[in-house]
């Protein structure tokens, strides 16, 4: 281990989509109402990404969820020519 921030290897994903924690989702529907692309719906009283292709990763659902049950993982990178001090 060095003094740098540990690498965040938190989620190994094959596709980049909102991750909904069904244990913390209360089924309040805030995200469903807020999603501008209508990608979310309540299934069995839990939020669910029903239209994967429509999701634009806009972060609205993550921001509005009152129980922080929705997570969007991000890659952090430099733009070309920005990676040298």
């Amino acid at each position, binding site marked *: *281990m*060095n*003094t*740098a*921030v*540990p*690498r*965040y*290897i*938190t*989620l*190994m*994903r*094959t596709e*980049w989509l909102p*991750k909904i924690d069904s244990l913390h989702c209360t089924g309040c529907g805030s995200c469903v109402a807020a999603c501008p692309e209508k990608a979310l719906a309540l299934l069995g009283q839990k939020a669910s990404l029903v239209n994967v292709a429509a999701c*634009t*990763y806009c*972060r609205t659902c*993550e*921001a509005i969820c009152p129980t*922080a049950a929705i*997570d*969007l*993982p*991000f*890659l*952090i*990178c*430099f*733009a070309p020519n*920005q*990676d*040298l*001090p």
Partner: protein
Amino acid sequence: MNSAAIQKLLQSHPYYSFLTAAEQKRLLQQSRTLIFQAEETILQEGEEAQFLWWIESGSVKIFKLSADGNEKILHLAGAGESFNDIAVFDGGPNPANVAALTTSQIWALPALLLRSFMLENPRFSQAIIQALAQRVRYFATQIENLTLYGVTARLARFLLQQAEGDSILEAGVTRKAIAAYLATTPESVSRTLRTLQETGAIQFDRHRIIIVNAALLRSIAMI
């Protein structure tokens, strides 16, 4: 992972490689491998530490829980790294909780055997001291960041360090994980990311946070 690949990964560990071939063989003979599913608890704070845990594949979070159940992530570890070293070497209880983030294959190396190697092999002991000293330095940096810099500077530092680190295919970091690491709230992380976006230091591109003006971000980070 085949045994040659496991050996190669073990040799990259900061102090395992200082064991003699005979010690390595003895250690592996007395160890066992376990598979943990995502979110499965591996260790609980306060329990007796019987093993040093070494990750063959997957990743784990090492965290504390506050009285109201909020999780504070202290460290994340991936393949090739070990955890619970402190408790193994000071003989105390597990200092934190550990849970798998992804399906993980993890080796349990007996603490008693490792402690006996420390008495017999000074190079191994020296390598452990060096690794633990690096950890002290790491936590000193963490304390410095928490006490000297505000959330904006800390987040700017975090983004730069993540972008400068080894990139791992398909890896990702969530707002919640950033908040836990920076000792702030997810809402604060969102607000601060928006501020950094408005200053022109970063841009969002679907699942990417792109540093478009590194010089500006470094100045915000006070680096």
